């Protein structure tokens, strides 16, 4: 229990053992309900000891319900981007986490549509563990919903947090069931014009370890997405925005797109909502 928790704090082992022994000793006194006056009178330097004073150690249980014991489990739902795009497009990028300071269940979703077709539909289910003041290590699975081919599953390991200069970073390595690999790097920044007008540039880059004509992804750098969104925070939790979204495919991915008669890059205006609760 408590002792186990303390191991996390990397306190010297020897001292820890001694402490555990003393803690147990202390417990046994509680259990037997030893009367206070059976304790030997403590040596108190030159301080006059209270005559007959009780030690006042046993008024309350050891597992009380009070303000300082709040280890609250919270849930945060974020719609980072919920937007309509030009050319019959749209996107939803959001996440939900539930848990404590250290451990969280973290769900992420990305859904993108362009010219009426679903381009991307992902759901990540991750275990997130705080490992450094600004960083969480995240592990779990990702499921891609495919409309035209088989859906795919990936294993995920990544880092999520705040890099120096206040860049919000989400990076993950994916390994598919068939041994496919992919890497995604995302970074976002917030530039405040005022407390309420906030400009947010964003970059996402996808790398793959192999070509996949069905998915339209190519080995190496496959595609880059750039976004620039200007939002107005009516409250920190409710902020509509306008912006521009740019996507470009590279290398083999670009070739696959050309073969399909699709554009290799696209620029679209967006309008949407950033919100959390």
């Amino acid at each position, binding site marked *: 229990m408590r002792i186990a928790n303390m191991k996390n704090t990397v306190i010297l082992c020897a001292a820890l053992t001694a402490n555990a022994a003393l803690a147990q000793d202390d417990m046994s006194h509680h259990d037997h309900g030893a009367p206070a006056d059976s304790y030997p009178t403590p040596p108190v*330097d030159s301080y006059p000891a209270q005559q007959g004073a009780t030690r*006042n150690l046993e008024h309350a249980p050891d597992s009380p319900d009070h303000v300082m014991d709040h280890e609250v489990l919270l849930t945060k739902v974020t719609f980072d981007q919920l937007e309509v795009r030009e050319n019959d497009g749209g996107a939803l990028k959001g996440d939900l986490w539930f848990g404590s300071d250290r451990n969280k269940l973290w769900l992420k979703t990305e859904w993108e549509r362009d010219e009426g077709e679903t381009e991307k539909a992902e759901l990540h289910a991750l275990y997130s563990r705080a490992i450094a003041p600004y960083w969480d290590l995240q592990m779990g699975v990702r499921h891609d919903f495919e409309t035209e081919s088989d859906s795919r599953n990936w294993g995920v390991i990544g880092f999520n947090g705040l890099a120096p200069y206040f860049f919000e970073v989400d990076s993950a390595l994916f390994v598919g069931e068939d041994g496919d690999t992919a890497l995604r790097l995302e970074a976002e920044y917030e530039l405040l014009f*005022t407390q309420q007008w906030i400009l947010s540039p964003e970059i996402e880059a996808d790398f793959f370890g192999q070509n996949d004509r069905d998915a339209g992804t190519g080995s190496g750098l496959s595609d880059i997405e750039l976004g620039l969104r200007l939002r107005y925070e009516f409250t920190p939790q409710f902020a509509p925005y306008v912006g521009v979204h740019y996507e470009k495919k590279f290398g083999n991915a670009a070739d696959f797109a050309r073969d399909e008669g699709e554009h290799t890059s696209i620029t679209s205006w967006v309008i949407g909502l950033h919100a959390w609760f």
Partner: protein
Amino acid sequence: MKRRNSPQFELPQLSRRRFVTGMAAGAALLGMPAGLSASAPRAGAAPQTLRGNQFDLNIGYLPVNYTGRERTAVAVNGSVPGPILRWKEGQTVTLNVTNHLAHDTSIHWHGIILPSNMDGVPGLSFNGIRPGETFTYQFQLSQSGTYWYHSHSDFQEQQGLYGSIVIDPADADPVAYDRDYVVLLSDWSDESPHDIYAKLKKEGHYYNRRRRTAGDLWREVKEKGVAATWRDREMWNMMRMSDRDISDVTGYTYTFLMNGQTPDANWTALFRKGEKVRLRFINGAAMSIFDIRIPGLKMTVVATDGQNIEPVTVDEFRIGVAETYDVIVEPDGDSAYTLFAQTIDRSGFARGTLTSEPGLQAAVPPMDYAPVLTHRDMGMGHGAHAGMAGMGGMDHSQHDMGTMDHNQHDMGTMDHSQHDMGGMDHSQHDMGTMDHSQHDMGTMDHSQHDMGTMDHSQHDMGTMDHSQHNMDGMDHSQHQVGAQGYSLHGGRSELGGMQGVWFTDNLGRAGHGSNSPIVHLPSEYGFGVDMRSEMPMSGLHDPGIGLRDHGSRYGRRVLNYGDIRNLTPTIDRREPTRELQLHLTGNMERYMWSMDGIKFNDAEPLMLKYGERIRITLVNDTMMTHPIHLHGMWSELETGDAEYIPRKHTILVQPGSKISYLVTADAYGRWAYHCHLLYHMPGMFREVRVV
């Protein structure tokens, strides 16, 4: 009044929304559809004064409306604040507290010396008071002065469960006055405290409406140039911290109350010309530190935390959450004066009026400039600037700031024995060679450079400027047990309990503070701690962030802890036998708070031996100002005079600073020891057990 002369502090006024002063404007500003529940704010019932030694206190719900929206408060005997309890020293008081709430409750008698089972802390003193139950508190009063009471359950303190206590002395009061008033300050939010806490956990800067903007950056570049601006910003950017993060919860959600009245409702006290009026200021806020002044009147501070002190006359003083200050004012005309209590971050104020004629009121002054944190507030010393990489190699024999070697990073090579200023030639402290333009002197109290009046602990070069830009890059190997003379139990390992940094040698004289080196335990290097003060300065003579230049800027005399001397001689004259160095730690991004990097949930009690006298040195490894409250025993603040050590129950610890006080463990039992900022309490909390 002098206008601000440093453009560094210019802030875009529009970015700071006007906090709700009691008008029905709040709804729209919080993004709620206006008019849904808006109605005219109502002034709450003034708290009654209850006298005697038998009291029935009923805790229940109370409809209130401070901002134009109907809300439910938690009240004692139907008022917020609860009744003023007027007691008499030497008497035994009996308080029957009945819980009419749907949840557990409790009352803690803040600052009262009593048996631990009467202290009112659920889980330590007793089990709390269940709904429908009555708990009877009974204790004898061995002290006099101004105190207060509040709930120690859940976040009820934010919801209105607080009130004041005045204990009249058994003998003649050494303070002469013709009339007295309690001035209880607090903060009210229309949001539930649980929502506030959740928002902070999800977005730590939620209530900070002064975050840096592109405009600020542009102004700075124009003033200082690109290079200097880059250097200044670099460290904050690397550390991912905001130098404008002064208060976690601000006027964005708070309405600040004086005796339960909004600034618009204007709590008013009367006096007759020529009278000496004693104002008993109590900070009963959940999260708000106030700076108090009465334009046009000098205030003579005669007591703090209920204890009489040698009178000090000031124009302004800071009152931390849970502190109390008694001041005497002598208005000599038939006129009105504004009691002005602005918050530390200047996001709002509480206000009342002291007048000789009902209905008269004085102008409400504008708030002062809003402070910005400096490197000093990160424990990097007051002279550090962003260009310095580290000062570990400075020449200790000559404190010429101009000769420091900025290139050494290895803090491990420092010989701490050289920090003993006893053998130093003060004439060599050539501060004159400092390049003031490079150092962020804007917010400094220049009086601290007066070599004649300086406190030695501030001179201690160990506390100055060994700044490390990248705190993460430190060599941790230097923190080995033994190397710096500390142990984990301070020679009392038989007591068990929490391990900490305990010193037993070279403690320094009682009353003069700590000589010990700063040690960060391994537990401080976890994900819950975002900063460690490597070279914290003493906070003793520091009036605090935002007040340091009020002397030079506005000509105001501002109180600092170094000014405080007890009125009567120190009672326990023993030297401390051991010293606990406890670090206040946290992570603003994750909104986690702790001591030594360990949250209350994971902490064992701090064990003290009944009768022993110890020193506690608090090191603030955060950028917030924390009011630290020890229950059951006095915190005897070491202000440099062993003969007249002031006794306090709550001590403000400045950001990136340290402060020391003595504690005589003269009360058996289990006691709470914690930061009094309500939303820091879940983590920055320890049990102290005296056995």
